[in-house]
């Protein structure tokens, strides 16, 4: 294995890691604010990929503008979906035992997968995803960099930075941090907790929608069950970095991406074992995740 090969694999890992990061952010935000493992999040990601698919194939979106239009549409659709799921399925259970909400989340997940598989919705088959732009590849000293990789990394970085600024610098972001810290106190401070939770679901789901489009561009086959594994791994990534912490989700996702691609390049059949093995070891050494502190600031 020469250096270029290793660098190439690192680059591929980076591409996968940034897609995971977009999904992991939604997990981490929702967990931070309502302490719920939102298992339906991976399926929101799947819906994002399908919305992109229909946008590109029916509106003939193409080129860079088309890509942006597709992404905005997917993000909007997923944001609406996330808010609706929260309103109908999770909000009535906010004061029930947490396990009830978790089971409901799994129910929503199964519903989205199988409802999506119905013939008049998305259909059960694998579909090949039309890329809105031509793929270009540049050769940098033997390292092959594709336009897909550049776009994924650029878009994901942009969204992560925007999210971090939003959470840290705006009034709504401050309210989100307050609600994550303590619902009741936040309500006493005049914060509309329900609204803030809806906003959190909207933002998290929109990021998953963007992730769905980017994932489909990079690995262009989609089906209604495509969200399960990336969803699980992104969730693991969020835990790895320290759940509830935005930079932690990014860090965890990048580690997961690298672990998966690097072990995949050696022995592809065991890559899930390595990825989840890392998770268990990290949990045992530092249960709150890599960036987690004993008293964490959450969103």
């Amino acid at each position: 294995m020469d250096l270029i090969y290793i660098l190439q694999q690192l680059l591929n890992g980076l591409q996968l890691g940034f897609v995971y990061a977009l999904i992991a952010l939604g997990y981490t935000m929702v967990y931070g604010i309502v302490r719920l493992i939102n298992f339906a999040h991976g399926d929101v990601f799947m819906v994002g990929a399908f919305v992109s698919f229909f946008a590109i194939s029916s509106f003939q979106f193409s080129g860079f503008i088309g890509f942006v239009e597709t992404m905005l549409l997917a993000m909007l659709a997923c944001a609406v979906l996330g808010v609706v799921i929260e309103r109908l399925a999770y909000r009535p259970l906010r004061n029930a035992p947490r396990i009830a909400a978790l089971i409901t989340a799994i129910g929503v997940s199964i519903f989205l997968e199988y409802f999506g598989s119905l013939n008049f919705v998305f259909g059960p088959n694998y579909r090949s995803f039309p890329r809105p732009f031509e793929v270009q590849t540049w050769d940098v000293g033997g390292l092959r960099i594709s336009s897909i990789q550049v776009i994924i990394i650029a878009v994901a970085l942009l969204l992560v930075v925007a999210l971090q600024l939003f959470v840290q610098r705006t009034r709504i972001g401050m309210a989100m941090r307050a609600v994550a810290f303590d619902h009741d106190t936040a309500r006493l401070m005049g914060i509309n907790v329900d609204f803030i939770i809806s906003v959190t679901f909207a933002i998290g789901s929109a990021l998953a929608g963007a992730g769905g489009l980017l994932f489909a561009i990079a690995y262009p086959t989609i089906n209604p069950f495509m969200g399960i594994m990336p969803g699980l791994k992104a969730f693991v990534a969020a835990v790895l970095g320290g759940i509830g912490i935005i930079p932690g989700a990014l860090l965890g996702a990048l580690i997961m991406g690298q672990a998966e691609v690097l072990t995949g390049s050696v022995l592809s059949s065991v890559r899930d074992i390595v990825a989840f093995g890392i998770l268990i070891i990290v949990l045992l050494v530092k249960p709150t995740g890599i960036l987690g502190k004993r008293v964490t600031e959450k969103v």
Partner: protein
Amino acid sequence: MKAARLLLPLVVVLAVYAVLQILFMTEVLNAYWEKIFSLSAFVTICCLGLGIIYGFTGQFSLGHAAFYGIGAYSAALFTKALQVDSALGFLVAILIGGASAGLVGFLIGLPILRLRSDYLGIATLGFGVMVKTGLDNTDGLAGLLGGDLLGGARGMTGIPPLASFTWAFGFLVIAVIVLRNFVYSNLGRACLAIREDEIAADVMGVNTTRYKTIAFVIGCAYAGVAGALYAHFYRFLHPSNFDFLKSVDFLMVVVLGGLGSITGTVIAAVGWTFLLEGLRFVLPSNLLDFRMVIYPLILIAMMLLRPRGLFGGNELGPLKPPIDEPQPKASEARSPGVTA
């Protein structure tokens, strides 16, 4: 008085068994239904195991199907490799299934049971995915075992047909009795104390690590026994039968029945198996695709209407606590705002 307490349930159990067996023999219920009844017994045993871990001890597990799979594969490997065809050999195989799942549960439980609530769930989820991936890649073991016995991702075939409805029913009854006696023993009391408040239990002198591990190992052994029975009834094992979704199935049953309720778990497990199969008959053939759409909707509706499960920690008949005392309450997770 004590004899009378035990006599009635014994008669009921024997009557249920006799009626079902007569219905199967006279073919009022065909072989398909015998399969469904047996399957519901396997699912129930496995869910009772998860009930010990989660319902009674409060340790969240999202990887129970892994132990079901370990039990199934190890028992099947034993009978297939040694060409077992006697009932005694099968009994040994079932014990091997239970013991191997229990042993793996001990080895993995010892380190990860230190984790709390969601983190434990995630660690067990990770372990479940690792076992499933491992079962997918057993081809490398073919040399070690002297032949392709486990079948890897193609699935394991050629398992001798040793199990029957009688085995399933018998082990289900044993599982319920053992669990009932466990729950009302000192051991079970310690587990309940851990579920209600781990720190308080620790302060009261309960060795929490010890009892959590005991509960976890017993729960895993239940899953292993259920897996061993399943393997010899269906005679085909595939790694995808033991994936994350199967773990979720078991968890749903335990929660639907009501955490910390043996009665609820049994009813929910049987009801759930029959609901899934029953939808095949109720739905017209052109709407069969909707089966898996209706199922999560029922699940969500159940959770919204009865968030504490069907029985909410209560029991029926002989499963009630042996002396008059307040019923153990299902652990009540506080609202997120309060716990933060």
